[in-house]
C-alpha cells in the first residue's frame, strides 16, 4: 500500500465524474428495484430460475457498479502514473477513489457468492430457513455497493446541485434496500406490533441521520425519504401493469398480473423531524451540543413522528378505501401460494408482541442508538474527500 499521491481541489481530477456518480447511483437504484421486482415475480409467477429477469437485473446492477469502479481505477491509476495528483486512495500501484474500491469489492463479493447461492438453493431450497450464509453475504454486497456509491457521490466534485440530488437519491435507495431486507416483518398487518417498531427504530434512523449529515442541503433526510417513497410507489403502480400468472402450485390466490408490493413505509414525517433536529442542533447547541444528545433527540423525534403516522396509515392500508391501484391495500394482494382468509385484513402479532410502554422504551433506545451510528457514518462521509 502506498500513500496518497496528493490532494488537489476535486474539480481538477481527470476521470469522468459525472459518469461515475450517475453509473453508481443507477446501480444503487437497480438493486432495490430488482429485489422488489423479484419479490413480485416470486409472488405472481413462482418459478424462480437462476437467470429470471429480476435476477438478471440484479446482476446488471452489480456489473454496472463494477464497470464504474474499474473505470475510476483505470483513470486514477493512469493519472497517477502521469504524475498528476489524484484525489483517491492507493493500494499498491493502483489508485482510485475509495468509493470505487468499495464498489469493486462489493461486485466481487456478489459474484463470488453467486455460485454458492445457486448451490445452496439446489441443496437446501428454503428448507434450511431464511437468511442462509449466501443470502447474508449477498445482502452485505448490496449494502457495500450502496455505501460505495454514496462515497463516490460524497467525494467527487460535481455541480453542487446535481451532486446533492444524487446524495439524497442514494440515501433514499439505502432506505429502500433496508426496508426490503426487513421483509414480511413490515407488512401493514404487523404495523401495530412492537417488533415492527423495534426493527424500524433499529435501522431507519441510522440511514436518515446518515443521509441528513452527508447531503448538502437542509432537508437531506426528507429528500431521501421522498426518494424512497417515490421509487417504491412507482413500483407499486408499475408492476401490476405487466401480465403474469402462476406457473407452479398451489394457487390459492389466482392472478393475471404481477402482484404489487406493499405500499412503502411513511418515513417522510420522521425524516422531516430529524432534519429539523439537525438544523436546531446549531441553534440550541446548549441542549445537545454533544453527539449523544443529538442522537437522543433524533431518536425521540423519530419515534414521536413515525409511530403515530405509521400506526394510522397501517389501519388505512388494511381498510377498503386503500383497495385501489394507488395504495394496493385493503388486504387484497397476496402471493398466489399463500392461503389466507380473514387474516388478510387483520393486525397480527398481539399478545407478547403488543406495543407496551416498556416496548416503547426499547423502541426509543434503539432509535437513539441507530441515530448515533448514522450520525457517525454521515460525519465520516461528509468529511471524506477521496
Amino acid at each position: 500500500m502506498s500513500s496518497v499521491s496528493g490532494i488537489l481541489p476535486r474539480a481538477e481530477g481527470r476521470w469522468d465524474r459525472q459518469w461515475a456518480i450517475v453509473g453508481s447511483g443507477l446501480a444503487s437504484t437497480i438493486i432495490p428495484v430488482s429485489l422488489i421486482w423479484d419479490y413480485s415475480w416470486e409472488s405472481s409467477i413462482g418459478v424462480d430460475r437462476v437467470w429470471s429477469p429480476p435476477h438478471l437485473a440484479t446482476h446488471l446492477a452489480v456489473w454496472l457498479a463494477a464497470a464504474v469502479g474499474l473505470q475510476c481505477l483505470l483513470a486514477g491509476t493512469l493519472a497517477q502514473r502521469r504524475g498528476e495528483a489524484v484525489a483517491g486512495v492507493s493500494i499498491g500501484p493502483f489508485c482510485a477513489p475509495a468509493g470505487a474500491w468499495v464498489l469493486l469489492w462489493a461486485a466481487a463479493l456478489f459474484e463470488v457468492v453467486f455460485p454458492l447461492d445457486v448451490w445452496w438453493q439446489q441443496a437446501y431450497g428454503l428448507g434450511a430457513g431464511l437468511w442462509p450464509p449466501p443470502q447474508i453475504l449477498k445482502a452485505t454486497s448490496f449494502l457495500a455497493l450502496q455505501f460505495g456509491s454514496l462515497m463516490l457521490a460524497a467525494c467527487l466534485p460535481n455541480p453542487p446541485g446535481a451532486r446533492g440530488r444524487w446524495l439524497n437519491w442514494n440515501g433514499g435507495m439505502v432506505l429502500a434496500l433496508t426496508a426490503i431486507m426487513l421483509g414480511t416483518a413490515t407488512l401493514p398487518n404487523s404495523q401495530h406490533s412492537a417488533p415492527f417498531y423495534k426493527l424500524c427504530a433499529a435501522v431507519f434512523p441510522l440511514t436518515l441521520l446518515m443521509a441528513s449529515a452527508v447531503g448538502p442541503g437542509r432537508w437531506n433526510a426528507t429528500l431521501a425519504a421522498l426518494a424512497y417513497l417515490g421509487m417504491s410507489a412507482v413500483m407499486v403502480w408499475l408492476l401490476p401493469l405487466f401480465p403474469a400468472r402462476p406457473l407452479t402450485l398451489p394457487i390459492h390466490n389466482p392472478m393475471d398480473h404481477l402482484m404489487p408490493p406493499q405500499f412503502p413505509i411513511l418515513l417522510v414525517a420522521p425524516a422531516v423531524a430529524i432534519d429539523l433536529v439537525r438544523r436546531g442542533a446549531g441553534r440550541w447547541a446548549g441542549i445537545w451540543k454533544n453527539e449523544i444528545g443529538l442522537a437522543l433527540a433524533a431518536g425521540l423525534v423519530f419515534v414521536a413522528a413515525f409511530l403515530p403516522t405509521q400506526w394510522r396509515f397501517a389501519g388505512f392500508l388494511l381498510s377498503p378505501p386503500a383497495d385501489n391501484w394507488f395504495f394496493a391495500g385493503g388486504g387484497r394482494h397476496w402471493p398466489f401460494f399463500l392461503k389466507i382468509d380473514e387474516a388478510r385484513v387483520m393486525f397480527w402479532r398481539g399478545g407478547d408482541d403488543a406495543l407496551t410502554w416498556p416496548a416503547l422504551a426499547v423502541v426509543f433506545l434503539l432509535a437513539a442508538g441507530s441515530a448515533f451510528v448514522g450520525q457517525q457514518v454521515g460525519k465520516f462521509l461528509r468529511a471524506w474527500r477521496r
Partner: protein
Amino acid sequence: MKNWRLIPMLMLLPFAVEAHVGSPNVFFEGRAGDYPVYAVVRPPAALPGAAQVSVRVDSAEARAVSLQPVEWRSGQQGSPQSIAAQRVMGETNLWSAEVWFLYPGSYSLQLQITGEKGDGHTTIPVNALAQQGQPLKPRLRVALILFAVLLAAGAILIVGAVANNGALGNASHRAMAIAALCLVMGAVAIAIRWRNMDAAYRDQWVQKPEPVNASVRVEAERAVLELQPAVQSATAASWAALVPEHGKLMHLFLVREPELNVFAHVHPFRTGAQRFTQELPALPAGDYQLYGDITFENGLGQTLVTRVRLPEPIGGALTPPPLVTNVSGEVICGVPSTAMTNRSEAGRDLEDSWHLDSGLKEVSTGRGRVTRLMGGYTLLFENAGAVIAGRETSLRFAVFGSDGREAPLQPYMGMPGHAAVRRADGSVFAHLHPAGSFSMAAQAAFLQKSDVATPTVAAAATPASNRVSFPYQFPKAGAYRIWVQVRVAGRVLTGAFDLEI
C-alpha cells in the same frame, strides 16, 4: 424476499416422510388412452425446485404432450395451466418438461397426449420431498475459499487505505487490525450459522424413515410380529388414515442379514390405529431388515425401516407342507396354506410369500442370466448386462418350466409380478411393479378427486405371457440384489439376482 414461501413449508413439516429408500425417481409404464406411455419423473432434491419429466410415447400418432401438476390439498382448482412438454431434439417420440414444486407434499401429474388417436389421459402420482443435497464440489469449494481470502485481504487493504488517507487520521494499522478482527468474527458467525442450518435441515426436512419398533412375541404357538411407531408424531398419527396399495394396507419385506438368503413379502393386518401385526411363517432365526411400504390417504408414501431378530422358528424352519416342497431342496418358496384373515389379533394373508435359498444358483447363458426357482422353474434376467447406474431401463424377466418351455404368468396381487431392489449397504430399497415405481393407491386417490384422468392399465406384461418387466433406474453404483416374484401354476415363486451396477 422469500419469507412468504417459508410459511406454508413450516406447516408441512410433519409430513417429511420417505417413500422407498434412496430411490426418489418415479417410473411409470402404462397407457394414456390409446397411447402406450413410459414416463420418468425426477423430483427436485430441494424445494422449491423443478422436477424433470420425460415422456416416451410409443405411438407415431402422438402429436403433443402436456402435463398439469396437481397438489393434493388444493386440487385442480389450485393448479396452474398445463405445461406443454417439448419434443427432445433428434427424437421422434420422446418429450421432456420441467415442473416446479414449491413445497414438500403429495402431487400428481395429469398427463395428456393429443394426436390422431384422440386425447389420452393418465395420472402419475409424485411425492416431492426434500433429500440430502449434493455437497459442494471440491473445485468449487477450493475456489470459494481462495476468493474468500482474497476478498478479506481486499477489505482489509481498503480499510487501511481509507484510514491512512482520510478523515479518520493516520490510523491505518489499527483500522486494518479492527477490520481483520471483524472479518474473522463475521466468518465464524457465518460458519456457525451454516452448521446450525445444515443440522436443522437434516433433522427436520430431509426425508428419512419414520422410526418404528418391531417386536416378536409367541402367541398360541405362533410367532407374531408387531410393528408400532417408535415415537408419537404427526406421521405416526396418520397411520389411522392409510389406503390399501393393491389391496393391502402394508407390504412388508423381510430380508435376512447378512446372508440375504431369506426373503419374505407379507402383508400385516392393522390391529390398532397405530399397530400392525403379522403371523410369521417359520423363517430361520436371525437378524432381519424390515421394509414396510404404506400409503397415506393424501397420496404420500412411506417406507418404514427397522430391524428385528427372529427366534428359532416354532415348528422348525421352513418345514413346508407338500404344496411348497421343493424338488431340488435348494430353493423354497412358501405361501400360506390357509388364510387367517378373520383372526382379530394376528393372521397371515393369502398372498404372503417367502423364499429361502441356500445361495444364488445363477448361471449365465447366451440369452441372459438365469436363476433357479422352486419346482424346477427358471427365471431369466434378459438384460442384466445392460443395466447401469443413473439410466432408466426396463428390467426384463422371463419364466420357463423345467422342460424349457415358457411358463405363463398368473396375476399376483393384480399384476404379472413384483420386484424388490436392495443395495448391499441398505441405502437403497424399492418395491417395483410392472407399471412402475409409483403408488397405485396414490394414483387411485388422485383419480377419485379428479374426473379428468382415466385409470391406467399396466402394460409391461399380460398375464398370458411368461414375461414381466419393471421400469427402474438404479440411483447409484454398487452391489444390489433384486428379488423377482411371479405366480406360476397358482404358486408364488421368488427368484433372486445379484447385480454389480
